[in-house]
């Protein structure tokens, strides 16, 4: 008799445990609205990042670099490439690039004294030309540098873009061993991203400027 009773109790206990687990998990599910995803694909072949920016994401193989808590850049992409270290290409979108001038030419000079400073490459501007990004005035910089001691070199394309009173930047840097060859594909992907880039919201500084104007400041 006892043998029949004990399995019944166990079964009841299991059912109770299952019900409790269900209730606990159900409670978790109703704790608040689901956090929106950082990256949302659109039917236009682009992605929306943090509901702030829309752009064409590079294909598979490019890892996204997200900076969700403030820092040196807003977001970027990285692709590890064939060949010896440091064969890789990075894209960065930075809304507060090095320097402080609001004039594009002056900012370019300021920017290049700090860009890749920690690598010891002393990058040199090979070419600088006027450009347009998102219909806004911009400067395109073609920069190259090398560090013979670390047997590394880098080539960059930089857009400094004048957006209102501020300057923002898009940077593509390709890293190679000193005897390595650069690859145009990474730069082409970068151009696609820049051409497709859109702001979906006003920036903090644009909103702040509007508030100051409303107050007559």
């Amino acid at each position, binding site marked *: 008799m006892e043998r029949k009773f004990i399995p019944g109790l166990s079964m009841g206990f299991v059912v109770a445990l299952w019900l409790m687990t269900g209730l606990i998990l159900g409670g978790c599910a109703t704790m608040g609205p689901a956090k929106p995803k950082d990256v949302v694909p659109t039917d236009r072949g682009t992605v929306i990042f943090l509901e702030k920016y829309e752009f064409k994401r590079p294909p598979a193989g490019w890892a996204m670099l997200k900076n969700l808590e403030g820092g040196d850049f807003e977001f970027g992409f990285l692709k590890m490439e064939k060949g010896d270290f440091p064969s890789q290409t990075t894209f960065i979108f930075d809304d*507060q690039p090095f*320097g*402080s001038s609001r004039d594009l030419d002056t900012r370019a000079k300021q920017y290049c*004294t700090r860009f890749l400073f920690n690598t010891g490459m002393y990058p040199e501007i090979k070419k600088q030309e006027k450009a347009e990004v998102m219909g806004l005035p911009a400067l395109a910089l073609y920069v190259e540098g090398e560090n013979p001691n670390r047997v590394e070199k880098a080539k960059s394309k930089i857009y400094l873009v004048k957006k209102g009173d*501020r300057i923002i930047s898009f940077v593509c840097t390709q890293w190679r061993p000193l005897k390595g060859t650069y690859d145009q594909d990474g730069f082409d992907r970068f151009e696609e991203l820049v051409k497709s880039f859109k702001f979906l919201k006003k920036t903090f500084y644009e909103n*702040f400027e509007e*508030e*100051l104007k409303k107050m007559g*400041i």
Partner: protein
Amino acid sequence: MDGHQRDLYLYERLNARVLGVSMDDVITNKYFAQTFWLEFPIISNTLSWMGKSYGAYSDKPPFAPDGSPIMFGRLTVVIDKKGIVRYVKTGSPNNQEILQFLLKLEKEFRGK
């Protein structure tokens, strides 16, 4: 410092002035300012009384992880027109927060 220099035109519109304070000597500060194209003054306070007055200095626990005194840390202080300290924050300055705080002070001032 870059961030303050970038926002200097907004600080000026809000009737705020930026003053850097450092324990470094004048020549070091001069080269530092040149390197970063800073247009606001930096005070060389080698005797550190300013840092001590505003709470940027600490030779008491809690110490740094290696057990050494923290000494001077980065500190942002906003002082209003009456000389009252209205905002104090340690660590890297949050420029957007500072701008919003200055706007709040300006609204307060205009409301009076």
